[in-house]
Protein backbone atom coordinates (compact mmCIF):
# COMPACT_ATOMS: atom_id res chain seq x y z
CA UNK A 1 0.00 0.00 0.00
CA UNK A 2 2.75 2.41 1.00
CA UNK A 3 4.42 1.94 -2.36
CA UNK A 4 6.26 5.18 -2.98
CA UNK A 5 6.41 7.23 -6.12
CA UNK A 6 9.59 6.73 -8.04
CA UNK A 7 9.48 10.32 -9.32
CA UNK A 8 8.34 13.65 -7.97
CA UNK A 9 7.17 16.74 -9.79
CA UNK A 10 10.18 18.58 -11.17
CA UNK A 11 12.18 15.39 -11.78
CA UNK A 12 13.71 14.88 -15.19
CA UNK A 13 12.75 11.60 -16.85
CA UNK A 14 13.53 9.87 -20.10
CA UNK A 15 10.91 7.82 -21.95
CA UNK A 16 11.93 4.26 -22.79
CA UNK A 17 12.21 3.19 -26.39
CA UNK A 18 10.27 0.01 -27.04
CA UNK A 19 7.63 -1.44 -29.31
CA UNK A 20 6.32 -4.53 -27.54
CA UNK A 21 3.96 -6.76 -29.47
CA UNK A 22 1.24 -6.25 -26.84
CA UNK A 23 -0.98 -3.20 -26.39
CA UNK A 24 0.70 -0.12 -24.87
CA UNK A 25 -0.06 3.58 -24.58
CA UNK A 26 3.28 5.32 -25.08
CA UNK A 27 3.30 7.01 -28.51
CA UNK A 28 6.37 6.44 -30.67
CA UNK A 29 7.02 10.16 -31.16
CA UNK A 30 7.74 10.67 -27.45
CA UNK A 31 9.93 7.61 -26.93
CA UNK A 32 13.58 8.39 -26.17
CA UNK A 33 12.71 12.01 -25.28
CA UNK A 34 13.58 13.71 -22.00
CA UNK A 35 10.98 15.71 -20.10
CA UNK A 36 9.99 16.95 -16.65
CA UNK A 37 7.30 15.48 -14.40
CA UNK A 38 4.63 18.17 -13.95
CA UNK A 39 1.92 16.14 -12.20
CA UNK A 40 1.32 12.77 -10.61
CA UNK A 41 -2.04 11.59 -11.85
CA UNK A 42 -2.64 8.61 -9.58
CA UNK A 43 -2.44 4.84 -9.87
CA UNK A 44 -4.28 2.99 -12.59
CA UNK A 45 -4.57 -0.60 -13.67
CA UNK A 46 -2.02 -1.37 -16.34
CA UNK A 47 -3.52 -1.11 -19.86
CA UNK A 48 -0.87 -3.52 -21.16
CA UNK A 49 -2.54 -6.22 -19.10
CA UNK A 50 -6.15 -4.96 -19.37
CA UNK A 51 -5.92 -4.92 -23.15
CA UNK A 52 -5.33 -8.65 -23.22
CA UNK A 53 -7.90 -9.81 -20.68
CA UNK A 54 -5.59 -9.49 -17.66
CA UNK A 55 -6.52 -7.93 -14.32
CA UNK A 56 -4.30 -4.87 -14.80
CA UNK A 57 -2.42 -5.51 -11.57
CA UNK A 58 -0.13 -4.26 -10.19
CA UNK A 59 -1.43 -0.76 -10.72
CA UNK A 60 0.98 1.67 -12.33
CA UNK A 61 1.60 5.25 -11.34
CA UNK A 62 0.70 7.66 -14.09
CA UNK A 63 2.74 10.85 -14.59
CA UNK A 64 2.06 13.91 -16.68
CA UNK A 65 5.38 14.73 -18.32
CA UNK A 66 6.16 18.00 -20.12
CA UNK A 67 8.58 18.08 -23.05
CA UNK A 68 9.94 21.12 -24.88
CA UNK A 69 8.41 20.94 -28.36
CA UNK A 70 11.70 21.83 -30.01
CA UNK A 71 13.36 18.89 -28.26
CA UNK A 72 10.72 16.51 -29.62
CA UNK A 73 10.55 17.73 -33.24
CA UNK A 74 13.38 19.00 -35.44
CA UNK A 75 10.76 20.73 -37.52
CA UNK A 76 8.89 22.53 -34.72
CA UNK A 77 7.97 26.02 -35.92
CA UNK A 78 6.68 27.69 -32.73
CA UNK A 79 8.51 29.56 -29.95
CA UNK A 80 10.94 27.69 -27.71
CA UNK A 81 8.62 27.85 -24.68
CA UNK A 82 5.95 25.66 -26.29
CA UNK A 83 5.45 22.25 -24.71
CA UNK A 84 3.83 18.91 -25.25
CA UNK A 85 2.39 17.12 -22.22
CA UNK A 86 1.95 13.36 -22.32
CA UNK A 87 0.55 11.00 -19.67
CA UNK A 88 3.05 8.17 -19.21
CA UNK A 89 3.06 5.18 -16.85
CA UNK A 90 5.99 4.77 -14.47
CA UNK A 91 7.40 1.62 -16.07
CA UNK A 92 8.01 3.55 -19.30
CA UNK A 93 10.20 6.16 -17.57
CA UNK A 94 13.88 6.16 -16.61
CA UNK A 95 15.61 8.67 -14.33
CA UNK A 96 17.93 11.28 -15.85
CA UNK A 97 21.15 12.67 -14.42
CA UNK A 98 21.13 10.70 -11.18
Amino acid sequence: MAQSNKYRTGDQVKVRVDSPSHHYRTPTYIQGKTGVVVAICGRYRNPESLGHGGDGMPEQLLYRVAFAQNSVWDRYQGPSGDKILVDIYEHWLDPVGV
Partner: protein
Amino acid sequence: MSESHDGEHVHPESGEELSLYARRAQAIEALLVEKGVCSTGEVDRMMNMVESRSPSDGAKVVAHAWSDPEFKARLLADPRSALTEIGYSLPDTTPHLAVVENTEQVHHMVVCTLCSCYPRALLGRPPDWYKSFAYRSRAVVDPRGVMREFGLELADSVEVQVLDSTADLRYLVLPRRPTGTENLSEAELAKLVSRDCMIGVTDPHVPEGVAAS
Protein backbone atom coordinates in the same frame (compact mmCIF):
# COMPACT_ATOMS: atom_id res chain seq x y z
CA MET B 1 -24.15 19.20 -44.29
CA SER B 2 -22.26 21.83 -42.36
CA GLU B 3 -25.46 22.62 -40.47
CA SER B 4 -25.68 19.10 -39.16
CA HIS B 5 -24.97 18.27 -35.56
CA ASP B 6 -24.87 15.20 -33.41
CA GLY B 7 -28.55 15.33 -32.61
CA GLU B 8 -29.53 14.47 -36.16
CA HIS B 9 -29.07 11.10 -37.67
CA VAL B 10 -30.11 9.33 -40.80
CA HIS B 11 -32.45 6.38 -41.09
CA PRO B 12 -31.73 4.73 -44.42
CA GLU B 13 -34.87 3.96 -46.39
CA SER B 14 -35.60 0.28 -46.33
CA GLY B 15 -33.91 -1.42 -49.23
CA GLU B 16 -31.20 1.21 -49.42
CA GLU B 17 -27.83 -0.43 -49.53
CA LEU B 18 -25.99 -0.33 -46.25
CA SER B 19 -22.21 -0.59 -46.11
CA LEU B 20 -20.64 -3.91 -45.30
CA TYR B 21 -19.71 -2.75 -41.82
CA ALA B 22 -23.08 -1.19 -41.12
CA ARG B 23 -24.67 -4.56 -41.79
CA ARG B 24 -22.10 -6.35 -39.66
CA ALA B 25 -22.77 -3.93 -36.81
CA GLN B 26 -26.49 -4.66 -37.07
CA ALA B 27 -25.81 -8.39 -37.23
CA ILE B 28 -23.60 -8.26 -34.13
CA GLU B 29 -26.24 -6.37 -32.16
CA ALA B 30 -29.04 -8.70 -33.31
CA LEU B 31 -27.06 -11.80 -32.35
CA LEU B 32 -26.04 -10.43 -28.95
CA VAL B 33 -29.70 -9.65 -28.28
CA GLU B 34 -30.81 -13.15 -29.42
CA LYS B 35 -28.27 -14.68 -27.07
CA GLY B 36 -29.42 -12.55 -24.16
CA VAL B 37 -26.06 -10.77 -23.77
CA CYS B 38 -27.84 -7.43 -23.94
CA SER B 39 -31.28 -6.14 -24.90
CA THR B 40 -32.49 -3.76 -27.60
CA GLY B 41 -33.97 -1.61 -24.83
CA GLU B 42 -30.58 -1.24 -23.18
CA VAL B 43 -29.04 -0.09 -26.44
CA ASP B 44 -31.95 2.33 -27.05
CA ARG B 45 -31.64 3.80 -23.57
CA MET B 46 -27.88 4.18 -23.93
CA MET B 47 -28.35 5.86 -27.29
CA ASN B 48 -30.72 8.39 -25.70
CA MET B 49 -28.30 8.94 -22.86
CA VAL B 50 -25.42 9.57 -25.26
CA GLU B 51 -27.63 11.94 -27.27
CA SER B 52 -28.55 13.88 -24.15
CA ARG B 53 -24.92 14.85 -23.55
CA SER B 54 -23.71 17.87 -25.46
CA PRO B 55 -21.16 20.66 -25.25
CA SER B 56 -23.81 22.81 -23.57
CA ASP B 57 -23.08 20.78 -20.40
CA GLY B 58 -19.42 21.72 -20.54
CA ALA B 59 -20.36 25.32 -21.35
CA LYS B 60 -22.49 25.59 -18.19
CA VAL B 61 -19.60 24.28 -16.11
CA VAL B 62 -17.21 26.80 -17.67
CA ALA B 63 -19.63 29.70 -17.19
CA HIS B 64 -20.08 28.73 -13.54
CA ALA B 65 -16.32 28.56 -13.05
CA TRP B 66 -15.95 32.03 -14.60
CA SER B 67 -18.60 33.41 -12.26
CA ASP B 68 -17.44 31.76 -9.04
CA PRO B 69 -13.68 31.77 -8.41
CA GLU B 70 -13.96 29.37 -5.47
CA PHE B 71 -15.84 26.87 -7.58
CA LYS B 72 -13.20 27.29 -10.27
CA ALA B 73 -10.45 26.44 -7.78
CA ARG B 74 -12.34 23.32 -6.71
CA LEU B 75 -13.03 22.36 -10.32
CA LEU B 76 -9.34 22.52 -11.18
CA ALA B 77 -8.31 20.64 -8.03
CA ASP B 78 -10.97 17.91 -7.97
CA PRO B 79 -13.30 18.00 -10.98
CA ARG B 80 -15.45 15.04 -9.95
CA SER B 81 -16.54 16.43 -6.60
CA ALA B 82 -16.87 20.00 -7.94
CA LEU B 83 -19.18 18.73 -10.69
CA THR B 84 -21.27 16.84 -8.17
CA GLU B 85 -21.89 20.16 -6.36
CA ILE B 86 -23.61 21.56 -9.43
CA GLY B 87 -25.61 18.48 -10.28
CA TYR B 88 -23.33 16.60 -12.64
CA SER B 89 -22.63 13.37 -10.83
CA LEU B 90 -20.45 11.25 -13.02
CA PRO B 91 -20.90 7.48 -12.78
CA ASP B 92 -17.94 5.56 -11.32
CA THR B 93 -17.31 4.05 -14.75
CA THR B 94 -16.66 7.50 -16.26
CA PRO B 95 -12.96 8.00 -17.00
CA HIS B 96 -11.21 10.47 -14.71
CA LEU B 97 -11.51 14.07 -15.78
CA ALA B 98 -8.82 16.73 -15.55
CA VAL B 99 -9.55 20.42 -16.12
CA VAL B 100 -6.76 22.68 -17.37
CA GLU B 101 -7.04 26.46 -17.30
CA ASN B 102 -6.03 28.76 -20.12
CA THR B 103 -4.45 32.00 -18.94
CA GLU B 104 -2.75 35.02 -20.45
CA GLN B 105 0.51 33.06 -20.32
CA VAL B 106 -0.52 29.49 -21.20
CA HIS B 107 -2.91 28.07 -23.79
CA HIS B 108 -3.84 24.36 -23.69
CA MET B 109 -5.02 22.26 -26.61
CA VAL B 110 -6.12 18.62 -26.33
CA VAL B 111 -5.62 15.71 -28.71
CA CYS B 112 -5.65 11.93 -28.52
CA THR B 113 -3.05 10.79 -31.04
CA LEU B 114 -3.61 7.06 -30.39
CA CYS B 115 -7.42 6.91 -30.59
CA SER B 116 -10.20 9.34 -29.67
CA CYS B 117 -10.17 9.88 -25.89
CA TYR B 118 -12.47 12.80 -25.13
CA PRO B 119 -14.43 14.11 -22.11
CA ARG B 120 -17.72 12.67 -23.37
CA ALA B 121 -19.39 13.11 -19.99
CA LEU B 122 -19.27 16.91 -20.45
CA LEU B 123 -19.01 17.38 -24.22
CA GLY B 124 -20.91 14.46 -25.74
CA ARG B 125 -19.51 12.56 -28.68
CA PRO B 126 -16.34 14.00 -30.20
CA PRO B 127 -16.65 15.86 -33.51
CA ASP B 128 -15.40 14.11 -36.63
CA TRP B 129 -12.39 16.40 -36.95
CA TYR B 130 -11.15 15.42 -33.49
CA LYS B 131 -11.01 11.79 -34.65
CA SER B 132 -9.52 12.63 -38.06
CA PHE B 133 -6.07 11.40 -39.02
CA ALA B 134 -5.12 14.97 -39.96
CA TYR B 135 -5.83 16.28 -36.46
CA ARG B 136 -4.31 13.28 -34.68
CA SER B 137 -1.12 13.60 -36.74
CA ARG B 138 -0.75 17.37 -36.81
CA ALA B 139 -1.96 18.58 -33.40
CA VAL B 140 1.20 17.52 -31.57
CA VAL B 141 3.74 18.89 -34.06
CA ASP B 142 1.92 21.94 -35.45
CA PRO B 143 -0.57 23.13 -32.81
CA ARG B 144 -0.31 26.78 -33.82
CA GLY B 145 -0.98 25.91 -37.45
CA VAL B 146 -4.03 23.89 -36.43
CA MET B 147 -5.34 26.72 -34.25
CA ARG B 148 -4.84 29.16 -37.12
CA GLU B 149 -7.19 26.98 -39.19
CA PHE B 150 -9.76 27.34 -36.41
CA GLY B 151 -9.30 31.10 -36.49
CA LEU B 152 -7.00 31.57 -33.50
CA GLU B 153 -3.67 33.33 -33.89
CA LEU B 154 -1.72 33.30 -30.62
CA ALA B 155 1.15 35.65 -29.84
CA ASP B 156 4.58 34.07 -29.42
CA SER B 157 4.54 35.27 -25.82
CA VAL B 158 1.76 32.75 -25.04
CA GLU B 159 3.11 29.29 -24.22
CA VAL B 160 1.20 26.58 -26.08
CA GLN B 161 0.82 23.34 -24.14
CA VAL B 162 -0.57 20.43 -26.14
CA LEU B 163 -2.02 17.60 -24.04
CA ASP B 164 -1.94 14.15 -25.61
CA SER B 165 -4.50 12.15 -23.62
CA THR B 166 -2.79 8.81 -23.97
CA ALA B 167 -3.94 7.17 -20.75
CA ASP B 168 -6.64 7.30 -18.08
CA LEU B 169 -7.44 11.02 -18.00
CA ARG B 170 -9.82 13.00 -20.18
CA TYR B 171 -9.02 16.69 -20.47
CA LEU B 172 -11.40 19.63 -20.52
CA VAL B 173 -9.96 23.07 -21.28
CA LEU B 174 -11.26 25.93 -19.16
CA PRO B 175 -10.97 28.82 -21.63
CA ARG B 176 -10.13 32.40 -20.66
CA ARG B 177 -13.14 34.55 -19.89
CA PRO B 178 -13.35 37.17 -22.62
CA THR B 179 -12.81 40.76 -21.58
CA GLY B 180 -15.85 43.00 -21.48
CA THR B 181 -18.16 40.25 -20.23
CA GLU B 182 -18.23 41.39 -16.59
CA ASN B 183 -21.93 42.21 -16.68
CA LEU B 184 -23.14 39.05 -18.37
CA SER B 185 -25.18 36.46 -16.50
CA GLU B 186 -24.01 32.85 -16.25
CA ALA B 187 -26.53 31.81 -18.89
CA GLU B 188 -25.28 34.54 -21.24
CA LEU B 189 -21.67 33.53 -20.58
CA ALA B 190 -22.44 29.89 -21.34
CA LYS B 191 -23.57 30.90 -24.84
CA LEU B 192 -20.05 32.19 -25.57
CA VAL B 193 -18.44 28.84 -24.75
CA SER B 194 -18.17 26.66 -27.85
CA ARG B 195 -17.23 23.01 -27.94
CA ASP B 196 -14.04 23.85 -29.80
CA CYS B 197 -12.78 26.27 -27.17
CA MET B 198 -13.17 23.54 -24.52
CA ILE B 199 -10.87 21.38 -26.67
CA GLY B 200 -8.55 24.37 -26.93
CA VAL B 201 -8.34 24.77 -30.71
CA THR B 202 -9.89 28.21 -30.39
CA ASP B 203 -11.01 30.83 -27.85
CA PRO B 204 -14.55 31.87 -26.87
CA HIS B 205 -16.07 34.12 -29.47
CA VAL B 206 -17.81 37.29 -28.33
CA PRO B 207 -20.32 38.56 -30.89
CA GLU B 208 -20.43 42.29 -31.66
CA GLY B 209 -22.50 44.19 -29.19
CA VAL B 210 -22.38 41.56 -26.44
CA ALA B 211 -19.28 42.77 -24.64
CA ALA B 212 -19.28 46.08 -22.84
CA SER B 213 -16.80 48.47 -24.36
